[in-house]
């Protein structure tokens, strides 16, 4: 049995000639179609260079503009010629000038000989497979496309819209179920003959001439009417990007292509000398019957599509700058914002570090400078601690910080004394967990031993700022995980909240707390707060702290579980 090759060429004639010779030398007749747009100065030397091969012939030339009927007409003529002039041909392989056989052609022939009834053509119904780019799935079969997509894009789009609005539809010929798939097929003589000799061919041709990208649907649909056995896959390895354009294989894809064990691959970069030298690989009797497996290639390329369509979460860079209203997650990884805890527990940061091994920063947004985990002036990635640089674009500071240490869970302290411009970014970020003990700012004021009248203005300011922050956190737009407790609620049962924080940060590794941080001595705080009230400044965010609860904190050091081990 013989394999015939129909080759479509419109550019890269040097390589195309090389490939045609290659197929012919392996004993395959080749019918070449050259785009009629190609000038005689290119066509003639190309045809001349192949004249020594009697089994390489040229078919009637058509104009092949992408997405139009010309491509199908070209293959029809070439395939008819193939069937008429080479009666031995049992399978016809549609290839292009940029297709490169990866395995010996003999192996492909043997493979096809064992499957003499099988048509290899990717063919899927549009109803079931949402493959296509640009939203024209079913509609490419029901609308009309008089304008060229590439050159008259605006008219193309408008005309599609117009038809959609008016509800215009073409009738699909009877019996025909639209299918689509890769344009690179390998059909048996019987099937191809049946398609080309179909009594209704004129009807089908007329219909498909008006379909958009008919070369991906003409044979794919008609084969369903005639084939005995369809293997819905292409023997040609071709990968497409998210826009439906073919990926190009370069020299450094050598290993990937070797491992694929596919018979033919496209598109090959015309200067990929290494690939053209290395393929087809030498005959290897042990591997001659192997099936193609494109799994690894699929993975590499689908990663690219994913990267191209999703990008790397939390990365803001020159070629990725998602607009804020489209993205819910700002940071690259989850992080925690802790407000008020370091006021309640002076030793909170080192305690949290010991418990979770997270990266526990100080007040990153403090007015004086960014207090990184180790109080360094430059953090990972060269992030400066300068408050001015940070505040110039706080969101970028935050995203850079999270991105730079994305291998760790980061936490930072926040408070009403800090720069507040970042608050909406924090509140809206789904990656953020925000824990607030409201009114905790009262503790340092109380501990400062200044009288209530001295600190009154400061307390009022902090309360106002915190209230504003809480308003952002409680707005419907807030998407972070947010837990708010008043100081009073918190000191009643601090363990509960701390355990939740630890679990949240450490994930499944979180264990029951063995060690609790030392709470500040709050004895006398209720009186202090009452004093503030008497001055006319109601600290409503602290909640109602009883003397009892406050006094508890004093006894803490003497109670066993509250002792900090100093080892």
């Amino acid at each position, binding site marked *: 049995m013989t394999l015939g090759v129909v080759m479509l060429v419109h550019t890269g004639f040097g390589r195309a000639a090389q490939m045609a010779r290659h197929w012919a030398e392996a004993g395959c007749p080749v019918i070449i179609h050259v785009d009629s747009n190609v000038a005689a100065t290119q066509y003639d030397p190309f045809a001349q260079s192949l004249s020594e091969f009697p089994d390489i012939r040229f078919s009637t030339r058509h104009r092949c503009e992408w997405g139009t009927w010309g491509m199908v007409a070209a293959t029809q003529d070439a395939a008819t010629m193939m069937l008429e002039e080479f009666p031995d041909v049992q399978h016809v392989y549609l290839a292009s000038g940029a297709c490169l056989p990866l395995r010996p052609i003999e192996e492909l022939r043997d493979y096809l000989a064992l499957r003499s009834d099988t048509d290899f053509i990717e063919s899927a119904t549009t109803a079931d497979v949402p493959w296509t780019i640009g939203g024209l799935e079913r509609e490419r079969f029901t609308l009309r496309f008089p304008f060229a997509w590439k050159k008259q894009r605006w008219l193309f789009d408008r005309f599609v819209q117009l038809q959609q609005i008016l509800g215009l539809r073409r009738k699909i010929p009877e019996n025909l179920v639209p299918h689509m798939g890769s344009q690179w097929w390998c059909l048996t003589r019987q099937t191809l003959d049946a398609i080309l000799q179909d009594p209704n061919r004129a009807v089908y041709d007329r219909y498909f001439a008006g379909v958009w990208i008919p070369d991906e649907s003409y044979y794919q649909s008609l084969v369903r009417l005639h084939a005995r056995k369809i293997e819905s896959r292409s023997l040609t390895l071709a990968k497409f*990007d*998210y*826009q439906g*354009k073919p*990926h*190009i294989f*370069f*020299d*450094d894809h050598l290993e990937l292509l070797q491992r694929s064990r596919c018979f033919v691959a496209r598109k090959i*970069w015309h*200067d990929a000398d290494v690939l053209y030298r290395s393929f087809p690989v030498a005959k290897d009797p042990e591997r001659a019957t192997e099936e193609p497996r494109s799994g690894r290639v699929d993975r*590499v*390329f689908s990663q*690219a*599509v994913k*990267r*191209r*369509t*999703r*990008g*790397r979460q939390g*990365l*803001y*860079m*020159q*070629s*990725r*700058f*998602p*607009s*804020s209203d*489209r*993205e819910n997650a700002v940071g690259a990884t989850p992080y925690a914002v802790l407000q008020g805890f370091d006021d309640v527990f002076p030793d909170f940061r080192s305690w949290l570090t010991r418990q979770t091994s997270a990266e526990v920063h100080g007040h990153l947004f403090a007015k004086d400078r960014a207090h990184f985990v180790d109080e*360094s002036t*430059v*953090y*990972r*990635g*060269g*992030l*400066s601690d*300068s408050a*001015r*640089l940070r505040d*110039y*674009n706080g969101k*970028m*500071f935050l995203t*850079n910080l999270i*991105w*730079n240490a994305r291998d760790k869970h980061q936490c930072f302290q926040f408070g009403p004394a800090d720069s507040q411009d970042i608050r909406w970014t924090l509140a809206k970020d789904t990656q953020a967990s925000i824990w607030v003990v409201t009114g905790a700012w009262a503790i340092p004021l109380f501990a400062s031993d200044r009288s209530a009248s001295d600190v009154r203005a400061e307390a009022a300011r902090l309360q106002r700022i915190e209230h504003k922050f809480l308003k952002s956190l409680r707005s419907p737009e807030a998407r972070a995980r947010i837990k708010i407790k008043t100081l009073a609620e918190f000191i009643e049962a601090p363990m509960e909240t701390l355990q939740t924080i630890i679990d949240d940060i450490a994930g499944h590794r979180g264990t029951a707390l063995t060690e609790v941080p030392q709470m500040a001595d709050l004895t006398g705080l209720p009186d202090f707060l009452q004093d503030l009230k008497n001055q006319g400044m109601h600290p409503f965010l602290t909640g109602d702290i009883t003397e009892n609860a406050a006094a508890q904190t004093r006894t803490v050091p003497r109670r066993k579980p509250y002792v900090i081990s100093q080892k």
Partner: protein
Amino acid sequence: MPDASGTVRHGLWHAYRLRWKRRRFLFRIWRKRRQIRAVADRTGQITEASILAFVTVRNEIVRLPYFIEYYRGLGIDHFLFVDNGSDDGTAEFLRAQSDVSVWTTQHSYKLARFGMDWVGWLQWRYGNGHWCLTVDADELLVYPDCEARDLKKLTAWLDEKRTCSFGAMMIDMYPKGPLKDVDYLPGDDPLKVLSWFDADNYRDQIHHYYGNLWIQGGVRERMFFAKDPARAPTLNKTPLVKWHWRYAYVSSTHQILPARLHDVFDFTANSRVSGALLHTKFLPLIVEKTVEEMSRQQHFENAPLYADYHQRLTENPTLWHEEACHYDNPSKLVALGLMSKGGWV
């Protein structure tokens, strides 16, 4: 899209104004065309598929040997240099290269929009239809997989994707230790001594007027511009463009008109392929050169504002710090998120 500098302008009226702006630039380029004079015209070598490089230089004899060699290896077919009054042998060196055409001028670099008017004229004359790389002598272009794939492949791939421009971010490279304390000989790979950079302290925002992504940050901002971040050097560039005679760069290669050409990023959370320009400014000679530049005052719009920066450069500073990142290869920049592979597999 809100950002630090206010609202981004768009709409038909703005587009129309940008169009006139571009025409004014082209007129200006045409008006200044006689400021440069050809001293070695080998442009006859340029063929249809040639990739061209456009460079303005002044006293770059130390960097040029490696520069030319590097870009030849990357697939540049012809170099078009404008020599702005060098006196260190740069002109002689360039004339001796077989694939270089040289123009010379003694006019003001600053008044020629930092050389963009001169280069603009050459692009107008020779660039049409070619992929044109516009870089400075201290910029080395890298992009994902560039060791294995030269510019011919990249540009063919971009052609295939119907993309006519390619973005690259400048990354300032610096040595470990004080700037002057390293040895560099002309012809050496500058990245052997300048092998460190800041991995990610870059700020992105949309430029309110031109709509390009405006990147600032890096070591120069960290060290010298912390007091005035708005003045920190701009790092985004669009150095590689399939040229059309109607195009014009605005300010260095940071912006280009028509503005669609510098849309090299995505709003929709995707990522496109992009590269990086490794900036070899901080070779040991920077210290002397800065002294000279300070007296020439040719470099920035508002030279006195940069006085402090230049003053500190002359003091042989150390830019290196504990968190500095060592440059190994382009893949490292991809992993760090400084450039992206996009669909370039």
